[in-house]
C-alpha cells in the first residue's frame, strides 16, 4: 500500500485529490480489519469503496486476470468483478 489507511483519511480531510493516484483503495479487500481496530470507529472499507466508485464512475475499468483457473470459486469471480470493475 502506498498510503496507509490513516494516511488515506488524512488526505481526504485535507481535500487532497492526489488520494486518487494512490493504489491503496484498490488493494483493500474489504476485510473490515481496519474498522474493527479503529479507535475512532471509522469504516475504512466503506471509505475505500467510495473512493473506488468515484473512479469507476468516471472511467470504465476492466479486470485483467493473469491466468484463469477453473478452480476459482464463483464467489471470488463475482466479488472481483463487482468490486473492481465498472458495471
Amino acid at each position: 500500500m502506498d498510503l496507509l489507511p490513516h494516511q488515506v483519511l488524512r488526505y481526504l480531510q485535507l481535500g487532497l485529490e492526489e488520494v486518487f493516484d494512490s493504489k491503496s483503495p484498490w488493494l483493500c479487500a474489504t476485510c473490515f480489519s481496519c474498522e474493527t481496530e479503529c479507535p475512532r470507529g471509522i469504516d475504512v472499507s466503506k471509505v475505500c469503496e467510495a473512493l473506488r466508485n468515484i473512479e469507476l464512475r468516471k472511467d470504465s475499468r476492466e479486470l485483467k486476470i493473469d491466468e484463469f483457473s477453473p478452480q476459482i470459486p464463483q464467489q471470488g469471480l463475482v466479488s472481483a468483478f463487482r468490486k473492481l470493475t465498472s458495471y
Partner: protein
Amino acid sequence: MEEMRSYLYFPGCSLRTVAKDFDTSAKASARALDLELREMQGWLCCGAVFTNLTENLITQAGPSRILGRAQAEGNTLVTLCAGCYNVLRRSSQRAELNRINQDQINAFNEERYYGGVTVLHLLEILRDKIGFEEIAKAVKAPLQGLPVGAYYGCLLLRPFREMRLDDPHRPSIIEKLLMSLGATAIDYPSRTECCGSYLGVGSSEIAKPLSSGIVQSARSCGAKLLAVSCPLCKYNLEVCQNLSTSADTDFVPVVYFTQLLGLALGLQPEQLELNSQQLHAIRSCARTALGKVSQ
C-alpha cells in the same frame, strides 16, 4: 438425541461447483447429528459481497429476493459459505432497518420483504442448537492427535456489530468444535487475518503474500491441516502453496470444518469427498480409531 430437526438451507453458487465437497460433507454430517439441511426453493446468487454503497440499491435486489423466498418456507435460513452468510445476514438486518430503501427494492423485485428471516451459520446451529458437548458424545472416531488450525478469515466475524458470531479478535467457535471432535486446536496469530479474498482472482501477486503468511503462521505453530468455512479462503490458501517452490512435506492441506466433523462422527472419507492429500495428512497425525473407520 431427539427427532430429526430440519433447517432451511441456502447453498450458494460455489457450493454447487468448486466446493461441492463442502455441501456434501455438511449435509452428511448434519444427517449424522439428526439434522436435516433442506434446500430452499428458487435460490439465486447472493451477490458474493455485501455492498458498502448505500445508494446503489440494485446490488441489494438479489439478497432481498432470496430472503423473501426463504420467508415463504420459514424464518431461519442456514448458510455454510462465509460469503453468503455475511451478505444474507447483513441484508436481512438492513431490510429491517431501512424501510425506505427496502420499499424501492421490493418495488423492483415485485416481492415483499421487510426483514424477519434470521440467517444462521451452521456453526451457530452446532453451538447453540445442538451444543458441542452433545457433539462430543456423538463422536465415533475421535480425531485424537490431529493438530488443526482453524482459519476464520474476515466474513464470518466482521463487521462485528452485524455478524456477532464470535469475538472478532479472539474467536473460539471453530476451535471448540475441533476439540469436541477430539482434535488439537492450534492457536496461531493469523487466524483472523484476510487471505486476500477476491484480489487473488485478478492477480496472485497481491493475494499470495497474505495467504502465504497465514499458512506459514499456522505451520510454524504446529498445524498440519487448516479448517475453513469459505471456498474462497480455501482457494487462496491452497493456491499460494501450489505457487511456492518449497518441498511437499511443507504443504498444509485445507479442509472444510464439516469434513472433519463428518469423519469424527464416523462417516467414510468418500462420503465427505476428502481427497488423498487431505486424507494423508489426517492419517499421518490422527492416532486412534480413524485408521479403522476410514479403511
